[in-house]
């Protein structure tokens, strides 16, 4: 009885393994077919210069990430302190508190998205694009998507900062 169960288990596991292997092969073949042979040849031919360019982009992005991260931290400290000043003076400002919380969340998401994007770039730089041009280009496509997510978060923060400014200005008329 136990033997039969074990046999069945092995058969099921083996079938699952075969199914997953064929599924990954299909996915891989599909992603390869998305790229023309010309494109693959181009990636192979310009592999070194492309990776060099990617490395320069990564370095520039690291500078932007560090400068932005520092400026965001300072901005969050400034707005949090100002919110505390409102609370200390018993002025109710729930909109300011909500916007600050949204800003904090957006800054955290910006950091997480950047980490993801930078991992894509690092992974792309590790790929031997002369041997695996399709893998390299697919990683570039992934990096593009993740970079767009970083850019979206930057725009979201700009928008939230503008909303906070507008909200503060409305309080200017209410205080002495």
């Amino acid at each position, binding site marked *: 009885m136990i033997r039969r169960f074990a046999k069945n288990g092995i058969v099921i596991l083996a079938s699952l393994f075969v199914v997953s292997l064929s599924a990954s092969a299909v996915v891989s073949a599909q992603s390869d077919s998305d790229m023309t042979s010309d494109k693959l040849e181009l990636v192979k031919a310009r592999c070194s210069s492309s990776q060099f360019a990617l490395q320069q982009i990564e370095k520039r992005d690291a500078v*932007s990430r560090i400068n932005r991260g520092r400026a*965001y931290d300072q901005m969050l400290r*400034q707005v949090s302190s100002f919110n505390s*000043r409102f609370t200390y003076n018993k002025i109710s400002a729930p909109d300011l508190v909500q916007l600050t919380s949204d800003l904090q969340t957006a800054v955290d998401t910006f950091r997480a998205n950047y980490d993801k994007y930078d991992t894509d770039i690092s992974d792309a730089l590790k790929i031997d694009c002369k041997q695996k041009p399709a893998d390299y280009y697919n990683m570039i496509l992934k990096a593009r998507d993740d970079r767009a997510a970083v850019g979206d978060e930057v725009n979201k923060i700009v928008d939230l900062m503008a909303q906070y400014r507008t909200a*503060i200005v409305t309080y200017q008329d209410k205080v002495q």
Partner: protein
Amino acid sequence: MSFMPPITKMRRRTRKILHGPKLPLALTGAIMVSFALTIISVVWYNLDGSSKLDLSRPGYEHERTEVLTNDTQKTYDTTSPVTKSAINDFLKEYDGRTKELGSYGSFTEEALDDNNIQLKPQNGGSATQ
């Protein structure tokens, strides 16, 4: 030569080390602790993303000069009354920061265009984008 079980042998050896000179024991302990702490800090450095933003690595000399540093941490008044002038002061600094943020790269999508990563076909190449 009499037979001695391995556990007794090990116990005797441990006792010998413990009752022997303390300096080698202390040195070995110190080396092992520092080795373990080094491994932990390197793993932490790589896992928490610090390594990605570490511009002190070789090859980042130029980028290092572009990072703006602010050594003094500004402290903000949280107890004074909220007045029009306080809000004006706040807005002055806030607007300055907004302007500063506008001067940094904003992760636009064009940076990873085929053209920018040297993958655009030249001379009317037939490769599709």
